Structure formats: C-alpha cells, structure tokens
C-alpha cells in the first residue's frame, strides 16, 4: 500500500492517522463488550491503553488486526478499512488471503508469548517472512539474526522456546513480529506473565523500538513505562473510553472518578 511511508519521516504531517476507530462496537453473542470506541493513533506514536480487567482492552486490540470481527462502527489502519471493502454504501467482507495481507503490516505481541515451540528462536523469527513474503531463506536468516542481536539474544539463536526464560521468549516474540517489517505493533500486556525481575529487559526493547519511531499500541499495567515512553494514554472501562490525554496528565491529574479509583489501586 504505502511502502514509502513505512517508518520514515514522511509519516509526519500527512495528517492521516495510523489507526482510526469510529464508534467501534463488539458483542460476543448477548455480551456487549465494546460500546462505541472512538480514537486515533498517529504515526510514530506510542499509544497506551489501560483499564480494569474485562474492560475490553484485549478485544479492541484483536479487532485492529481482525482476529475479532467488529459488530458496528468503522476501523481503519493506515487509511484502509480493516477486514472489509467499501463500495458505495455496501461493505464486502475481504477474502481470507486479503485479510492475511492486511495483517502482515501489523505485528502483535501476546501476553503468553505464543512462540512456536517446535522451532528454534531463529526459526521462529524466519518463519513468517519465508512463508508469507516468500523471502529467500538466506535473506530471512540474515535479518532474523540481526533482530535477535538487537533484542539482546544473539547467543540464543539455536535455543528452543522451552530452553529460554520468559523474558527471553517475549523478546524473541517481539523479534518475530518485527521480522515482517510492520508499520504498527500491538502489545497485549507483554510483561504481565513475567517475573518482576524480567519485566525490565522486555520494556527496554520496547523503549528502543519507540525511539526508532515505531507506531505502537500498548495495553499495559506498567504505569512507569506509560509515563516515560507513552505519547498518549487512554483509560478504558466497561467497553468505553473514559478518559484520554497525555500519560503524565492522566496519570497525575485524572479527571474522572473511575480513573481515579482505578489508578489508586494500581499505582
């Protein structure tokens, strides 16, 4: 689509948001989970999403790469409608291949890592570029090695996930997502399955990524990270956006009672 704009300064000032949600609703059967989400994420922005358990943060993130279908509203990534094609006022569902093509440009990092256990760290990172982008193995291997070096795992390339610590696994997972050269990265509580002493190494990698200008949406309970690295922050509760603004602003001077009571519990 917009190969030129990928992670370059051209993104700045085009005025087009990387992600745009307009009245996004999501229901699972009778359960109404997302109740009209409106937000915009700008290119090169680190966008933090906080909120109590069950408020729909993961669900919203999964809608962005169409792992879940939204029930109402419109969701755009880099100007393109997620999962659908609009002709006139009719929406057409995209075919499986087209959805897969949209997802290539969106990296996702999961709470439970979800590395492929039957592949080494290097193979995990190489797999998608070879399979999906039809890259040659040599090129994919070279990039995978570079990415593993970058996340500080240059000496663990031949290890299987079961032979790595949680923090190391999550860093491999980040490298695996980066190997597809995405223009947007989604993080769903990337550190909450980790022992406290391993959280820092993953956050360091994410901070490094943010400095490089990656557009990131981060669901997190790490308020320190949100305050330091985040460019904007949204507090979600019960499927709606309660409050949004600059992280320092929201975290130190929350305006809504719900935000206040949530922050008093987690800070």
């Amino acid at each position, binding site marked *: 689509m917009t190969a030129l704009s990928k992670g370059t300064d051209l993104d700045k000032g085009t005025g087009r948001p990387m992600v745009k949600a307009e009245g996004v609703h999501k229901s699972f059967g009778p359960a109404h989970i997302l109740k009209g989400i409106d937000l915009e994420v700008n290119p090169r922005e680190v966008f933090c999403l906080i909120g109590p358990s069950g408020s729909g943060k993961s669900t919203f993130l999964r809608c962005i*790469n169409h*792992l879940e279908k939204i029930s109402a509203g419109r969701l755009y990534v880099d100007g393109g409608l997620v999962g659908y094609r609009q002709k006139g006022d009719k929406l057409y569902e995209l075919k*499986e*291949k087209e959805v*897969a*093509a949209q*997802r*290539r440009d*969106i*990296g*996702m990092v*999961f709470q*439970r890592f*979800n*590395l*492929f*256990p*039957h*592949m*080494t760290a290097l193979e995990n990172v190489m*797999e*998608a570029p070879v*399979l*999906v982008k039809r890259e040659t193995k040599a090129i994919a291997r070279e990039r995978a090695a570079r990415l593993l070096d970058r996340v500080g795992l240059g000496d663990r390339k031949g290890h*299987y*996930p*079961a*032979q790595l610590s949680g923090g190391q696994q999550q860093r491999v*997972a980040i490298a*695996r*997502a980066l190997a*597809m050269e995405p223009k947007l990265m989604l993080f769903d509580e990337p550190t909450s399955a980790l022992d406290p002493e391993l959280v820092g190494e993953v956050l360091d990698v994410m901070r490094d990524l943010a400095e490089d200008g990656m557009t990131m949406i981060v669901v997190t309970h790490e308020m320190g990270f949100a305050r330091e690295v985040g460019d904007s922050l949204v507090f979600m509760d019960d499927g709606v956006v309660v409050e949004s603004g600059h992280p320092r602003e929201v975290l130190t001077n929350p305006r809504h009672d719900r935000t206040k009571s949530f922050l008093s519990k987690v800070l």
Partner: protein
Amino acid sequence: MTDTVDKVPASALPPEQIKAIPVRHYGRWVAAVVVVAILVLIGIAFSNANINYDVIPDYLTADTILSGAWATLYISVLSMALGLVLGVVLAVMRMSSNPVTSTVSWFYIWFFRGTPVLVQLLLWYNIALVFPVLNLGFYKDEMNQVMTPFLTALLGLGLNEAAYMAEIVRAGIQSVDEGQTEASHALGMTRGQTLRRVVLPQAMRVIVPPSGNEFINMLKTSSLVYTVQFTELIKAAQDISSTSLAVVEMYFVASIWYLLLTSIFSIGQYYLERRYARGSTRNLPPTPLQRLKANVRLFASFRRPEAVR
C-alpha cells in the same frame, strides 16, 4: 566462603553411611519361580507336540514367503499412507465451520468405522455390480479391469483406516494451543499455512503413538485381503501348507515374519516420537544407540581405569 574457617559445623563432616539390611522381597522370588516353571512346562509341551520345527528355518526364507512378506509390507504401508492423508483431510473437514463439509466427514467416519473392514473389502471387490464401467471423462474402462486385487486391497484398507486416522488427527490438532493459531494469523499466515507449518507439526506428538498402534494393526489386518485375491503373507503360508502338509509350521513362519515387521516398526516409531518431541522437552533422551555407546565407553573405562584420566 567466609573467613570463620575455624568453626566447622558438625553437619559438614562426612556422615556415616547407613548400613541396613534391605527389605526382602520374597514375593518376587516366588513369582519368578512360578513364571519359570510355567515357561518350562509350555516349552516341554510344544517340543513334544507333533510339530516339525526343523522345516521352519527353510520356509522362513522360501521365495513364496518372502514375496508374501513383501506384499504384506507394501500394502500396509501404502494403505496407511492413504489413511493418513485422507485422515488429515477428514479431520480438517470435520472441524470446519462449513456445515456441509463437517457433515460429510461425520457420515464418512460413521460408515467406515461402523462396518467390518471385511465387508468393505468385499464391497470394493464387487463394485462392478454397481458401476460396471468406470468413466472419468478422460479415462474409460471396464470396472473389472480397473479393480485389480492390489487396488481393491488398497482402497478397502486405506479408506477404512482414514476413518480411524481422522479421529486421531482431530485429537492431535485439538491438543495444540489456540494461541499458536492466533500468533500465526497475526503474522499474516493463511489457515492452510498455519495448519501445515505450525499446528500439524505440534499435533504429531499426539498423533504418532496411536498411529503406531494403527500401523501394527494394519500389518495384521492386511491378512484379510486374501479374500480379494491379493496374495500376502498368510495366503503365501497357506499356499505352501496346502501342498507340504506343514500347516502349523507355516503359521509359525508367518508369525515370525509378523513379529519381525512389528519390531522394526516399533523402532521406527521410537525415532519418530523423538523427532516430534523437539522443543517440547529441554533435553531429548538418548537414543538406544547412544545409550549403547555410552555403556560401552563406561565398560571400557572400568576395564582400564588409567584410560579415564
């Protein structure tokens, strides 16, 4: 690593080794004696029986028996391959969200598991009664010409096996964490790519052990295909016994071949399981060969203690 070396706690001294009289397992000795006695009695009974053991080694490598064993082997392997491929297709169909394909798969499994394989073989054998002519558009022939004993045996055994393999494969696929599929989709893989590269390789760990059972069953069930004029091991043994009168001896010969084939495949299964255990355990157990080598080395080092240093 402290500098108070003068005060060594009492527990740091080497403890006195316990010298106790071990519990006597009298039951084991009794059991061993009973087992040996029974084996000896069975041995005596068999050696006094009117069986001509001398002919067994000769018949073991008779041409008829060898080609029979070969036929058993290849019809089993090919039927199993057909069963595996079709089983994967049926399992995927069964789990598909499309109600038509999942119902078709359900009925297939219901029918082929619910009827005796002997009946299925005979149905294929007599398929010309239903479809006298095979017409594929580009290919047309009398059904009786097409359905050779080999093809009849392959279809009978393979299509039956597919129904069982489908359930084994389905269990394997369902054993793989859903997060694996999500991660693959998030990377832009299609469902087919996810299945082939991510889900099936992990499902194999669950699929291989029961498939080993299925294969060994297949080796023996394949003896039924003599009913469709396909000559395999049992048929070969019977052909010889009908002229040589060495009836029981020939069943011994066939049994030895079946034991040999199943033993070989058990070893193959061990290595296959090891291969698919990659990544699921931190360290793979040594193979029997590696264990043997390690023991030999250990033994050598006992003999020549100076060589160890």
